[in-house]
């Protein structure tokens, strides 16, 4: 496991927040995912050794939460809401628009490596449906036109690199 020194010090720090080491499992997984982008295969063993657990205990946690990713994703993570309000106001179309723009399928890395599109549960902004989160940023009322606009923006930024 190749973690940045900052991540390692954050990990050691966060363990001290809990009365039992085991409780630090979730924060550790978040920190590793932030650092690496996903949870590489040796995560369970690394975290288990750190927290004096068995690897299976960590694997159970990783596989329980859909937000923990066991495979790399694109440079940006596009999360389109699929729950009721968004679905009623065109969330499915928005999602399809993103897939089309980047020639990709749900959960996969787009061929250009720029994005991974996921169809997720309620993003807690039902009043401005359909909503989309691109990494940590919330975009409201994303219809197909706005999806195209956001995609163009991402592609333009990619070109600049």
């Amino acid at each position, binding site marked *: 496991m190749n973690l940045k020194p900052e991540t390692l010090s954050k990990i050691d720090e966060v363990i001290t927040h809990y009365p039992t080491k085991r409780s630090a499992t979730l924060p550790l997984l978040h920190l590793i995912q932030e650092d690496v982008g996903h949870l590489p295969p040796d995560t*369970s063993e690394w975290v288990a050794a750190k927290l004096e657990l*068995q*690897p*299976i*205990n960590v*694997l*159970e946690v990783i*596989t*329980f939460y859909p937000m923990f990713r066991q495979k790399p994703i694109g440079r940006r993570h596009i999360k389109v809401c699929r729950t009721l309000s968004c679905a009623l106001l065109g969330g499915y179309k928005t999602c399809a628009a993103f897939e089309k723009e980047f020639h990709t399928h749900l959960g996969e890395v787009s061929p250009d490596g720029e994005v991974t599109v996921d169809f997720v549960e309620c993003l807690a902004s039902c009043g401005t449906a359909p909503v989309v989160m691109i990494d940590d940023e919330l975009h409201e009322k994303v219809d197909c036109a706005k999806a195209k606009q956001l995609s163009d923006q991402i592609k333009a930024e990619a070109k600049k690199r």
Partner: protein
Amino acid sequence: MIAPAKPDLVTVNIDGQEIAVPKGTNVIEAARLVNVDVPHYCYHPKLSVVGNCRMCLIEMGMPAVDPATKAPIMDPATGKQKINWIPRPQIGCGTNVSPGLHVKTTSPMVKDAREGVMEFLLINHPLDCPICDQAGECKLQEQATGYGRGYSRFVEQKNVKPKRTQLGPRVTLDDERCILCSRCIRFSKEIAQDDVLGFVDRGSYSTLTCYPGKKLENNYSLNTVDICPVGALTSTDFRFKMRVWFLKQTNAIDTESSVGANTLVWSREGTIYRITPRRNDEVNDTWLADSARVLYKAVKAADRLAATETIEVLVARAAALFKSTPGAIAVVGSARSTVEEQFFTRHLATALKASAQLVSRVGQGDKLLISADRNPNVRGALVTGLIKTLPAQQLTDLAAQIDAGKIKVVVAINEDLAAAGLTAAQLAKVSIVYLGAHANATSAAAKVVFPTLTVFEKSGTYVNQQFRIQKTLKAVPAAAGATDDLVVLAQLVAAAGGAALPAELGLLWKVIAAEVPALATMTFANLPETGLVLDATPYAALPFVEGETLHYKPAQPAVAAATA
């Protein structure tokens, strides 16, 4: 209020029956005591309580008291204290008794709850009982019959999961049948101390799995098969061999060490198919080592000895040897023999005016059900007076006496003299009379060979490390050409000029009771299934090799360590 009968007992009422049970008992166990079955899957008496299957739902209530005065509220209709029933079902496994607790296990609410739980458990279940090994001993099958609704309302697609995962060398998993009770996970973690099993992809697709790259291969892995309430975990050895309802069960003892774990031997028409644990809360709880479960293979082993002559001829030949060399005979008995055989061995040694010695076997104890002493019955030899001190691993004295020409005939019972340190030259120098079930260097060198029985073909007793005398019973008939050890020994004693001894256990135990003070009050027939603990004080000074195992702590670890 109902007053507790004793300070540590609480009186509860289950389906109208009152019973006093120890504090800390849960509702499932309390109900068991009044013969009320509370169906359950995840609860196991020897594992932690997790309450995840919800099969054990019951209705419960507490006697009503006035909140202000704490005075009991009486029900005018019955004249008894009113019961406040909780309007929702509770789990029986996670509910410990409290004074006055009332439980209903047959009410409509409980019936509904059970039907509901069964329906959900069966939603994704493949219902492949006709090809399932667990059929006949499956809790799901039993409880579907007892408490299920009898028809399915499920029209959707069932989940598809891995059908035959090898969790380890001895255990095969069918994930579709798993009802996610987590018993196997808790066993591995809490008892076997090998936490490799777990649920991944929790949710509709929860799957029991072994951590990728690891194996369920500890020497207790097959206990997960025993406790799996359904057919998800199966024994790779026993899988698809035999329907369990065809098998006869015989109580026996695990002879691989001095723990003396209690076992059940499952056989049909003279063939043994499997060995499983038999519960004994003072010895092995409900567990058994994997290594104990393959011992039956010795019965049909290729190296079984079979007699080519009648026993009379063989006895006559042994008698001739005994006569030709009075005073130069040694007897090597066995700590693997039963108490009864050891008693006969002592008689034989006395009649031959020979000294008897045993061979010790020492290994690493596993702190659970295999002790350091790999002989099942060293203490039996002490109790019957066959030996006074603990045996050694090598027969050094005997070797010296043979070299010096002082010993001319050796009677070896169930012990390979070569394995105990005698050289081929020494074996060639003496005339050997051998009793044993399997061929070895000693039987090959012997002048007279009596093919005898494995533990599965005979009845008898063993004294384990706790000085608990326990019974093992004959599961299958004797192999062709083999004779019961007791019959052979009785004839040898007679040939050596000793007293006539009965080889039939009932009669024999009268003789044993009369001659062995420690066993004076015992008979074979009334020895309890869980054994009887004998007085160990006469042997307190002996440096036994055992370390701590389940339900056993060595009396003087300091002494044992010092002499080790």
